[in-house]
């Protein structure tokens, strides 16, 4: 058994790449070793800004020998066959064995691959790993052609066992592996040699390098907390920043400073963002005032003046940065208090998308849509419209220009400072949400209206111009917008027809359609038809209908709405197309919540499938139902009934739908099923009316025993045609009752 230590020493590796690089190094090397026939007990990967390190313990000294026998041609086969066999095995004729095989003599090749020394394998695997390392971005340097994240300076590759430690002979682009490394850039004292991993860690620490990033993180966090605690303050936790800072230093030395009095009036997020983004500072809060009043910076070195110069320098940079922020804040407040007109005006000249006009055009569309959505989500229409108009005003503010990640949040502060209603301020902050599957969903009705309108407008706009996501390409984040809209609806239990909202979203775009339709230019037909995704002839038909429609001149007509909600069977049109996209996203979303694809399909097949809240309720109930024993058994009963019925209907060319009469029942099982169906119907109807799917399905579950008993006792296709028809009509009742809840034919199993 041996231990392996690898260190790839380079110029500074970007902090954000280190975690993945550690994992990649570990998996590439260990997989390579295992594939080559070695085994190992454990492996650990480490990184600092200047090194990637792998330690493998309990490595076998050599790979197992492999013996392979291959049967070749008969000895009396044509010469070409033998030549081919020799070529494929790489042997010569006298190395082959001749053996008796049944009736003939046959050549056999015995290929012995002896075990290979670990060092040989390591050298190969390490070189291949270095040459093919999956850095997100890599570079060449000097005269070389090797690629690495930044210039690779040295390779340490040491294999140690009871006999001692040996350098694994290896050279990549002129860099020969050795047993030396160096410590901290400023605090270390030149190169030193190491004997193995434990020795390496100890000597690195002596040379002011903490190898393990987790240890550096812990030291930073502990040090920062101690500094803050001593001053009666507390550090604001930020794990992302902690990991990044740990990737920027080999010898972390936290230092704490105070933010100048002049800047304490800035919103805490501004202070935090400025300090984090520009300076990688942690924010320090004063629990007595609740304000951010200090910072912790993490130096990479110890100095004779205990960091005083470093802290002073950092403080100076921070003051310059915060002076800028304060200047922005004060200027922005002036504009906000004057009604934000300057920003709204400015948004007219900011292009949102060249086919969808300016940000101001977009805001106008969102505001109109938010008005329509407001009553559906319990918001005041005027307030929703006002909020939508102002929600994106902060995009023109100087602060958001500097810190784009503060969009929305600044809008909230500015709306409050301008004395606007709190609902308007919150909508500015929250209307971008939710941004992902785990992001918080707004609940304030005005925020919900604006957020929903924002997302629907994005979707209808890009859909209208046929800018749809394809494969992995989704440049306008339309999948995210659809997921956001869905979560807004579902989490808030909003009851609405999504298709109607989508059509509202198309309304302003319809103006363009109307222009195209009314246009004298016949040549526009083709283009407009293409845009709508319909054949030119269909488009011309619409045009003549619209031309006859007197209401056209007086604003958006119902006719146009109908135009988009019309079902052109298999002809895609923007409205239904977008709804299908929503359904696809919903499937992905629900699948993540453990609801199977086929269950969702069974619910999607029901009417009202653009009411997502209802759809989800139904799917959840069905999923729960199918998890019960009654549920799975009833599903079988339903399928059996449906199959028998479908076959009979296909054979007889009629539909068995009504007229099942208990008086033709011959057996108790049949009569019991009649009774059970009556009882189930009586219970299911009111439950469905109340949209209580769970209750409906519980009632449905009562059908399981009588249905099973029926199938056990009764031959459906009886000799007597009257009895047969009666039984088929009875099966129809099972099908009808079950199908009223969901389309169970779509469910697997």
């Amino acid at each position, binding site marked *: 058994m041996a231990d392996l230590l690898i260190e790839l020493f380079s110029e500074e590796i970007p902090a954000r790449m280190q975690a993945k690089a550690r994992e990649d190094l570990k998996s590439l090397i260990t997989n390579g070793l295992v594939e080559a026939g070695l085994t190992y007990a454990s492996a650990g990967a480490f990184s600092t800004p200047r090194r990637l390190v792998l330690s493998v313990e309990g490595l076998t000294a050599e790979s197992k020998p492999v013996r392979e026998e291959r049967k070749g041609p008969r000895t009396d086969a044509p010469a070409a066959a033998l030549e081919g066999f020799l070529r494929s095995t790489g042997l010569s004729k006298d190395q082959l064995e001749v053996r008796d095989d049944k009736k003939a003599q046959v050549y056999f090749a015995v290929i012995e691959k002896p075990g290979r020394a670990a060092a040989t394998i390591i050298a190969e695997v390490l070189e291949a790993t270095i040459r093919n390392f999956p850095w997100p971005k890599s570079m060449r340097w000097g005269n070389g052609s090797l690629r690495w994240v930044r210039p690779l300076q040295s390779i340490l590759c040491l294999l140690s066992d009871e006999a001692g430690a040996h350098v694994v002979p290896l050279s990549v682009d002129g860099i020969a592996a050795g047993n030396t490394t160096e410590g901290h850039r400023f605090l270390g004292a030149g190169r030193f040699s190491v004997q193995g991993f434990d020795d390496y860690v100890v000597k690195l620490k002596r040379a002011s390098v903490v190898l393990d990033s987790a240890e550096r993180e812990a030291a930073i966090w502990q040090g920062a907390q101690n500094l803050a605690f001593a001053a009666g303050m507390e550090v604001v936790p930020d794990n992302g920043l902690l990991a990044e800072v740990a990737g920027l230093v080999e010898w972390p030395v936290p230092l704490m400073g105070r933010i100048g009095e002049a800047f304490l009036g800035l919103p805490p997020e501004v202070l935090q963002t400025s300090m984090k983004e520009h300076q990688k500072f942690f924010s320090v809060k004063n629990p007595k005032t609740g304000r951010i009043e200090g910072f912790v910076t993490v130096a990479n070195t110890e100095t004779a003046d205990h960091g005083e*110069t470093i802290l002073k320098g950092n403080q100076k940079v921070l003051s*310059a940065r915060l002076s800028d922020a304060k200047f922005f804040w004060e200027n922005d407040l002036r504009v906000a208090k004057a009604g934000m007109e300057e920003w709204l005006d400015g948004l007219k000249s900011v292009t949102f998308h060249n086919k969808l006009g300016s940000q101001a055009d977009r805001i106008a569309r969102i505001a109109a849509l938010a008005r329509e959505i407001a009553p559906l989500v319990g918001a005041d229409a005027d307030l929703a419209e006002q909020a939508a108009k102002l929600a994106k005003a902060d995009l023109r503010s100087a602060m958001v220009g500097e810190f784009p990640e503060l969009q929305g949040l600044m809008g909230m502060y500015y709306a409050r400072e301008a004395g606007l209603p709190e609902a308007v301020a919150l909508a500015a902050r929250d209307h971008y949400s939710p941004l992902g599957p785990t992001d918080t969903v707004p609940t304030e009705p005005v925020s919900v209206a604006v957020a929903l309108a924002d997302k629907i407008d994005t979707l209808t706009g890009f859909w209208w111009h046929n800018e749809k996501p394809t494969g992995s390409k989704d440049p306008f984040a339309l999948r995210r917008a659809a997921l956001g809209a869905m979560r807004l609806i579902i989490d808030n239990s909003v009851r609405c027809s999504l298709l109607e909202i989508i059509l509202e979203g198309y309304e302003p775009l319809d103006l363009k359609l109307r222009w195209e339709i009314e246009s004298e230019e016949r040549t526009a037909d083709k283009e407009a038809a293409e845009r709508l995704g319909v054949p030119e002839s269909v488009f011309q038909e619409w045009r003549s209908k619209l031309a006859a429609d007197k209401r056209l001149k007086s604003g958006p007509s119902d006719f146009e709405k109908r135009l988009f909600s019309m079902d052109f069977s298999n002809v895609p049109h923007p409205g239904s197309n977008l709804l299908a996209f929503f359904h696809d996203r919903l499937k992905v979303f629900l699948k993540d919540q453990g609801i199977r694809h086929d269950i969702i399909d069974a619910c999607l097949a029901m009417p009202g499938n653009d009411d997502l809240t209802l759809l989800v309720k139904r799917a959840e109930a069905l999923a729960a139902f199918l998890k019960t024993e009654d549920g799975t058994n009833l599903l079988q009963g339903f399928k059996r009934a449906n199959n028998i019925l479908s076959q009979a209907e296909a054979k007889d060319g009629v539909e068995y739908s009504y007229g099942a009469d208990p008086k033709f029942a011959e057996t108790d099982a049949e009569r019991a099923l009649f009774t059970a169906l009556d009882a189930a119907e009586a219970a299911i109807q009111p439950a469905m009316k109340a949209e209580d799917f769970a209750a409906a399905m519980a009632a449905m579950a009562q059908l399981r025993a009588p249905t099973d008993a029926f199938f056990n006792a009764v031959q459906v296709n009886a000799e007597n045609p009257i009895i047969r028809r009666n039984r088929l009509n009875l099966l129809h009742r099972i099908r009808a009752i079950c199908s009223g809840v969901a389309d169970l034919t779509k469910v697997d199993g």
Partner: protein
Amino acid sequence: MVDAPKAPRSFQEIILRLQNYWAAQGCAVLQPYDMEVGAGTFHPATTLRSLGSKPWAAAYVQPSRRPTDGRYGENPNRLQHYYQYQVIIKPSPSNLQDLYLGSLQAIGIDMGLHDIRFVEDDWESPTLGAWGLGWEVWCDGMEVSQFTYFQQVGGHDCRPVSGELTYGLERLAMYVLGVDHVMDMPFNDPAAPIPLTYGDIFRQTEEEYSRHNFDGADTAQLLRHFEDAEAECQRLLGFAPLDPKTGKTIIMAHPAYDQTIKASHLFNLLDARGVISVTERQAYIGRVRALAKKCADAFRQTEAGQDAPAEANA
């Protein structure tokens, strides 16, 4: 490591120390390029000479103009005209980071007191069709230099790779000299018979150029000049390589590149005058980049830009 030298006392002393330091490292100390450029990278000693395989080492001060950064001399650290110190070495030596740290020591930054960090910053110049990987160098949290390994310039792969160092001189000097407002920075020795501050020399010009850049420049004329420079660059590159008068192959790569520099600066001025919309912006940048690429193509055909013949035993 040698002991840190005495602290410099003026802006010009910092420049002189950098000049001496890089001269001692074997760089040719060049003079600024005699045209208006946005950054030291535009100097043909960097842009063009980073192409081809011939070794190169140069250092120089480059006055740089960023018309949109004008603040009438009032902002403590924003100027529309400022100085960059540029070092370019091809192929990049393996100890370039150490050489760079040596230059910081030369201007009085004591590594025993300060915190120097190399923080990821990838460099890209869309107008030059160039990019590289490297860092911004922090001294106590302040960005004092840009450090880049060129990967591509003018659309050409850099083989070998050049190492480029860019120091923002005013900011660096203000930090070293402990000055809070750039205009208060001593330009020459404060003990000289006639001590001059940065403001004595540049406050008035910052005012004048700020007004010029934001309000004075004639946009119609700038647009014409842009078109002229673009046309002239292409015209110069359209000449047959063989010069009938001398019978030599003379490709006018540098004169054509001058026109690219002009077009780039004119674009910056137009941008400052606020007459270029967001959508047009990309188109203008693309036009300048197309010129830069053509100049790079042309330079690669010249003697200075060609690949040296491979060594026999290489």
